[in-house]
Each structure stands twice: as C-alpha cells, then as structure tokens.
C-alpha cells in the first residue's frame, strides 16, 4: 500500500465545513455560536468556481477508442465464466473467427448443419408439362433444334405472325438430291404446324430444289408456306453488305 497523510479537523472546523456545505447540524450551529463563517463560505465559493472553470477531460472518446481497438475478450470471458480448457476455447474462437463478422460464420454454420435446400424443380416440372429428371435447358434446346434445325440462320425477314419452318445453308453449301429435295411446311387442321422433310418429290409442291449453291459470304434459306404457295429462296449477305 502507498503512503499518504491525513489531516484531522477540530470539532469547530468540522462544524464550519458542514455549515458551508449546507449540512450543519443543530450541534454544529450551537457549537459555532457567533463565529463568523463568511471567510469559509468565500473560500468554498472560490474553490467551486475554480473547479468549474477547468475543462473536464473528455475520456469517453479515448475509452471507446481503446475498447474498440482491443475488442471484447470473448475468449477470456468464455474461459473464465465456463471454466473451459484453453483448447476448447481456442476451438470455439477458431470457428467464430477473429476478423470476420459472426453473421457470415453463423450462416455458414447453419448451412453446414442443415444441408443444402432440396431442388424445387421436381414440384415445378409437372405444372409446366415437363418431367422432373429432364433438364429445362436441354428441353428448350431440343425444342429449338427440332423446330428450326441445326443450320438455322436467324433472319428478320419474315413477319413474326406467320408459322414457318426454315432451313439455313451456309455459303457454299450444296444440296444435291437424287430425286428432289422438298421442304414443305403445311398448316393443317386447326393451325397446328406440320413440318415435313422428304427426299422424294411431291407433286403438290410448287418447286423441288435439286441443287442449291450460294456464293461466298452468302447465306441461303429455303421456305415453303403451304402446299400451294411458291417456294421462296432467300439469299442474304453474311457480312451485311449488299449482295
């Protein structure tokens, strides 16, 4: 313990001190009698004024800065309060991490514990006319391939309201058929699109294409709208220049 000195007050001084502080007892007043306490009151006021003028040190910011820099000693609290071994505490703190937020760690822990959410595709597929094991992407790709073929060249030429089946041919492609190549699209019955491709001639088709050769940088599409409609051969410059 450090050394310190004490100052003992006389009963009169103690009574005077309590009087200037406003806490004098009847005994103090009787003891002091007619003693002039104005000097003591004046001294008290001077001291009080002197103390009020001094700037109170702002310790809050320093304290908070200090606390923030140090951080909460979670490991210490766990160790002290739960009485756990250091190895266990280190393991827990390792799981929580020191620099990362607890939120991300908590989400990871939850996912790890609960596992991944099951796919909803099995429940959704029947409502859209698909089978659960079927890949939606494969289904769409298959539908597109079935409709337009692998060599389809998109073209803004045709009005979108018309059903059509298009065959695209890259530059230099040659179609040679022993009899004839017929590309026929018919709108049968209630408007269902019927696409047929056959190597044999059909007399109702306006044109059978035996050979078809496009120039360099030319794309060709052959279209047939209905059995009595004329065949349309489209040629388009791949580079966008006027052919």
């Amino acid at each position, binding site marked *: 313990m450090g050394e310190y000195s004490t100052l003992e007050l006389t009963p009169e001084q103690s009574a005077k001190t309590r009087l200037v502080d406003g806490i004098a007892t009847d005994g103090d007043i009787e003891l002091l009698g007619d003693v002039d306490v104005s000097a003591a009151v004046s001294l008290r006021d001077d001291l009080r004024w002197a103390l009020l003028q001094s700037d109170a040190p702002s310790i809050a910011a320093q304290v908070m800065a200090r606390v923030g820099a140090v951080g909460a000693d979670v490991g210490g609290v766990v160790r002290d309060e739960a009485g756990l071994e250091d190895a266990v505490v280190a393991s827990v703190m390792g799981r929580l991490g020191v620099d990362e937020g607890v939120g991300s760690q908590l989400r990871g822990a939850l996912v790890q514990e609960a596992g991944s959410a099951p796919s909803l595709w099995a429940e959704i597929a029947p409502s859209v006319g698909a089978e659960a094991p079927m890949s939606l992407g494969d289904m769409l790709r298959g539908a597109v391939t079935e409709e337009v073929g692998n060599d389809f060249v998109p073209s*803004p*030429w*045709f*009005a979108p309201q*018309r059903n*059509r089946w298009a065959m695209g041919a890259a530059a230099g492609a040659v179609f040679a058929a022993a009899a*004839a190549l017929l590309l026929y699209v018919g709108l049968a019955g209630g408007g269902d699109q019927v696409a047929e491709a056959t190597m044999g*001639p059909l*007399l109702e*088709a*306006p*044109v*059978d*294409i*035996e*050979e*078809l*050769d*496009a*120039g*360099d940088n*030319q794309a*060709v599409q052959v*279209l047939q*709208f209905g059995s009595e*409609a*004329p*065949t*349309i*051969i*489209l*040629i*388009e*410059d791949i580079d966008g220049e*006027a*052919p």
Partner: protein
Amino acid sequence: MKWLMIALLAVSGPVLAQGKSGGSDAKAAARSPVEIKLWSVHATNTHQNMDARLKRIAKHLGNLKFSGFDLLGRQSVDLKVKAKKKFAIVGKRAVHVTVLSRDEKRARVKVQIVGAKGTLLDTTVSIRRNGFFIVAGPKHRDGVLVLPIFARY
C-alpha cells in the same frame, strides 16, 4: 391376290396404251419451249403500297417482312430445252436461266444470279407446270429485290 392383279391391270392398261400411242407426241411436247417470266419487285418499308400488278402474288409477298412492293419490271422469253437466257436486272446484276428439261408436269430450270461480286445463287429447281418460285434477298436501295420466276407452258 388374283383380284389385286386384275385391278392393277385395269388401272395401268389405259396408261400403257396411251404411252404406246402418244410416244411421239410426248417427245414433241418435251421439245416445246417453256415461257420463262421474270419479275423484278422492290420490297421496301418506306411505304405500305402494293403495286396493283402484283395482286396475284400479293399474299405470298406478304410473307416477307416488308410493307411496300413496287414492280420494277417484267421480262419473259420462250426457251427451248437446253436454251439459256440472260436477264439483266437492277443493280448491275443478271439472272441466267436455262431450261434443262420439261415434261407434262414439271420443268427443270437452272437459275444463276450473278452480281458485281460474283455468283449469288446457283440452283436447279423443278417447277410445277405454270408454277413459279421466288428468289429474294439482293439489296436494292432501301429494301431488297424480290424476283418471282414463272415457268409457263
């Protein structure tokens, strides 16, 4: 099976008889010329008018994504089998048409479209008698050129 054979003979008999008696006529018809007609149509989106002279094929032109169609010209020629004709069209292009053969129902025609940069299209088609087909695509001004090609005989 017996009835089937009889039925086949009944159906094929008149055809065979016609083939024997009309052989020379068929050969003569095969050598007769085919009238090839070539129309030049300008398809554009700058207007929505359909040339009145295109009324017959207007519904087919409607498949193209253009609102207006102007008939630029009509050319025709009688071509015998193996004969060839060059049609000059707009844009310093030419359409070469060769009649390869014809029969009662169809005419085989070779069509070549040549532009400034070379051959644009080289095709051989079998056109139904009095039928036609359409070649479209060569750019022309603010639209494209549409070429209906007819085979009349």
